[in-house]
């Protein structure tokens, strides 16, 4: 290869060139990276970063890192959304061209689902779930760190695509044969396939980890039916993960093999069936919807019960409805492509099974309402998000039942009506929940409260902006506007609605900025949480100081009933529990290897993206070496001596 060839490769295939916005992004990425390096060097924080964060196996710190990464991805995915809304604000705009628009709706969807919603929920599960069950960490802390770093480097690989090599452009569903090599050459789709594969492995590991943690590590006395609802939601979500994610693994691997090695799983020729991809994708994809909504239900249950000051209404019905949703979630996938033409019998089955899900979900909605009935409700920011969830989510639920009506679905299919539907369930469900959870558990993570006034401003602007943006999409959808259009003519009557939608979208952007400012403001001036129990909470995470100490519980409490901490407070048992004699606490050791193994996965992944198989193989050999080193490692952990526990507890005012 001579110099001309190298230059040609770099300018045409490697770096994305010719787009002013991309150049701006290049500059921004370089400046931000330099700024981070400068700050870390100037304040001599490299060692701190490595020892306290990059090598940590502490579930709370891993949870916090998940949340930071998810907020960054919310920014990226949100920016994509705003670019789309800007392009669609008026007819015949040329702000984005068709190709650029395709890339942006692809990355918007992929990032929001895989790199925002899931990690945000995983972050909250990591922070709160072990505390709720009275455990000192998850079952496999080392594996937990691997899960996080695989997600992180999977997300990094995916995000690299828009400056190096080019973004994927076949939609977040990556339907074949469009996503096959013949119709979509270039590396964009490879980024999609391998980025998701990496983070998917991490997700599967998390699912296994959470199941074992919840089933094997609960405090004495906490039977399954005495677990907090968020823990129940985490358990059921993990079960769905274990049975759904392998399907995605297989689908991604097959499409990768099609693209890299010329197989014919989903090609239109040589016997391949493009709709096989759609089936596999949605056999994973519909359970995935419940993976991001059940933890959200769990958060709302905790928040509503806490701020209503009442036991959750219908606890058993809440648990069973989640189990029913979990089972049904595997029997509805065809409703994503009724238009495929599977025939009336198949479509009817999947239409009915889809409608059935409305029953357990309805049970849950009524249980939340009945928890609030005749309660002295405290309207904190966390609770406002939970209260706004109920009516907004119900709108999404009702349109969901409408979409399940097969004959009608041929009208709604892939229209903006569908876009409105799933944004109402995913934003009003998942996004409201992670915001509620963020405000609710913030003091437990950082020891100070988020400012309520700023929080409420952000809440109102976001919720109003959300409805202004997505409610009109129902109407333009019924007027015939289909999804993934990059522009539209002026004479269809869509223009005013689209313009209004864009205003709503930017309002949500403003609310996000207020929220980020709130984080900054509260860190500096926010009220400190000295009690560990700022909300008069009901579950065990509020029994420990804020932020929770490394070992979580100096002594493990004995659980006698649901809402264990509430009962302890009511019966005056808190002081007695705190005065129990201390013993040395065994904790796992930090390890550099989860980080390193994920870097090696990233290197291998980058190799496969560019089809440089030698680099892929080198990376994978490194991965195997790390696995072997781990096998031969004696990982016995360490003990925290009683004096140190006493010192920590005294500093928190507990002794």
């Amino acid at each position, binding site marked *: 290869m001579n110099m001309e060839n190298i230059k040609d490769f770099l300018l045409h295939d490697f770096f994305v060139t010719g787009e002013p916005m991309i150049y701006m992004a290049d500059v921004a990425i370089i400046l931000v990276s330099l700024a981070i390096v400068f700050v870390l060097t100037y304040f001599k924080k490299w060692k701190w970063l490595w020892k306290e964060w990059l090598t940590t196996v502490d579930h709370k710190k891993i949870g916090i890192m998940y949340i930071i990464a998810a907020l960054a991805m919310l920014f990226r995915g949100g920016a994509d959304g705003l670019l789309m809304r800007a392009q669609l604000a008026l007819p015949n705009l040329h702000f984005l061209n068709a190709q650029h628009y395709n890339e942006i709706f692809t990355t918007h969807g992929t990032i929001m689902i895989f790199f925002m919603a899931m990690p945000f929920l995983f972050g909250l599960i990591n922070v709160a779930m072990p505390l709720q069950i009275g455990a000192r960490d998850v*079952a496999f802390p080392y594996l937990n760190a691997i899960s996080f770093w695989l997600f992180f480097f999977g997300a990094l690989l995916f995000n690299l695509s828009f400056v190096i090599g080019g973004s994927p452009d076949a939609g977040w569903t990556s339907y074949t044969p469009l996503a096959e090599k013949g119709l979509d050459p270039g590396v964009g789709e490879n980024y999609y396939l391998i980025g998701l594969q990496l983070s998917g492995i991490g997700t599967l590991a998390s699912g296994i980890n959470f199941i074992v943690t919840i089933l*094997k590590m609960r405090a004495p006395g906490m039977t399954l039916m005495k677990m907090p609802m968020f823990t129940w939601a985490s358990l059921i979500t993990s079960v769905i993960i*274990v049975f759904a994610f392998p399907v995605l*693994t297989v689908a991604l691997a097959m499409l990768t093999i*099609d693209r890299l090695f010329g*197989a014919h799983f989903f090609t239109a020729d*040589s*016997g391949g069936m493009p709709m096989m991809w759609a089936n596999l994708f949605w056999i994973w994809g519909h359970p995935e919807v419940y993976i991001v909504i059940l933890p959200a239900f769990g958060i709302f249950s905790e928040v509503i019960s806490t701020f209503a000051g009442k036991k959750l209404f219908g606890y058993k019905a809440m648990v069973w409805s989640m189990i029913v949703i979990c089972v049904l979630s595997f029997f509805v996938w065809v409703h994503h492509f009724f238009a495929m033409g599977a025939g009336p019998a198949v479509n009817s089955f999947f239409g009915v099974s889809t409608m059935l899900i409305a029953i357990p979900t309805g049970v849950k909605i009524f249980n939340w309402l009945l928890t609030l009935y005749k309660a002295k409700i405290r309207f904190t920011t966390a609770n406002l998000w939970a209260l706004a969830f109920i009516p907004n989510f119900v709108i999404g639920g009702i349109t969901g039942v409408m979409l399940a009506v097969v004959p009608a679905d041929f009208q709604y299919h892939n229209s903006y009506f569908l876009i409105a539907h799933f944004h109402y369930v995913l934003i009003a469900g998942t996004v409201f929940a992670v915001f509620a959870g963020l405000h609710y558990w913030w003091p437990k993570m950082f020891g100070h409260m988020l400012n309520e006034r700023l929080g409420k401003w952000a809440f109102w602007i976001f919720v109003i902006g959300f409805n202004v943006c997505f409610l009109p999409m129902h109407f333009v959808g019924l007027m015939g506007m289909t999804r993934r259009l990059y522009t539209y003519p002026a004479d269809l009557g869509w223009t005013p609605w689209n313009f209004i939608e864009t205003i709503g979208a930017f309002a949500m952007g403003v609310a996000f900025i207020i929220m980020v400012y709130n984080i900054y403001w509260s860190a500096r001036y926010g009220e400190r949480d000295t009690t560990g129990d700022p909300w008069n909470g009901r579950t065990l995470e509020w029994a420990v100081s804020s932020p929770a100490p490394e070992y979580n519980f100096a002594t493990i409490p004995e659980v006698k009933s649901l809402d264990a901490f509430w009962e302890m407070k009511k019966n005056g048992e808190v002081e007695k529990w705190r005065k129990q004699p201390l013993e040395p606490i065994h904790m796992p050791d930090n390890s550099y290897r989860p980080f390193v193994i994920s870097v090696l996965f990233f290197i291998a992944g980058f190799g496969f993206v560019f089809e440089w198989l030698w680099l892929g193989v080198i990376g994978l050999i490194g991965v195997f070496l790390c696995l072997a080193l781990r*096998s*031969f490692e004696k990982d016995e952990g360490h003990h925290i001596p009683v004096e140190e526990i006493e010192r920590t507890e005294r500093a928190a005012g507990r002794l």
Partner: protein
Amino acid sequence: MSETHAVATESRGPLEYATKDGQMKIFGFWVFLGAEVVLFSCLFAVYLAYLHHTAGGPTAHDLYEVKGFLIETLLLLTSSFTCGLGIHELRRRNKAGVLAWLLITLLFGLGFIGMEVKEFVDYVGEGATLSTSAFLSSFYILVGTHGAHVSLGILWMIAVMIQLGLYGINPVTARKAFIVGLYWHFLDVVWVFIFTAVYLTGLVL
């Protein structure tokens, strides 16, 4: 979490379950095998859907030969039996016995992999490659994924045997040997399905 809490009291059942850490890791591995069942189910479903999608290329009838896959089956099923004997010796705390039976298991496993590689090479020689048809894509990926699992299992078993040799039988090495045994038996179960759904079905249908 803790391997130092390992108080191995022999009265409380098998050594690999003696510590909380051992119990959790074994249980976690069972959950992982649940995920593996789903993974292989997808590969089987895709293969069966593509059974006749041969696109004018070689069919199952043209390719499969009874003698080859029968020997493969016997090798792998026997290896599962010897692996079970190894775990039996583990329960008897007989280190030499464990190592001997696991070594035999490994040799059977290597024989199986050798046969499978030869089978694939022969097919490719007959012009049946990954890119010939959807049928062959799904055949190579289903059977190849199983073969890759067995190969990884061989490397893994070697690592566990070295540790058994170095450190003797203790709650940690017992747990490791037990888990690699679970993995090995699981791969045998998958092979029974491959034998039925791929080879027998391919010759009959």
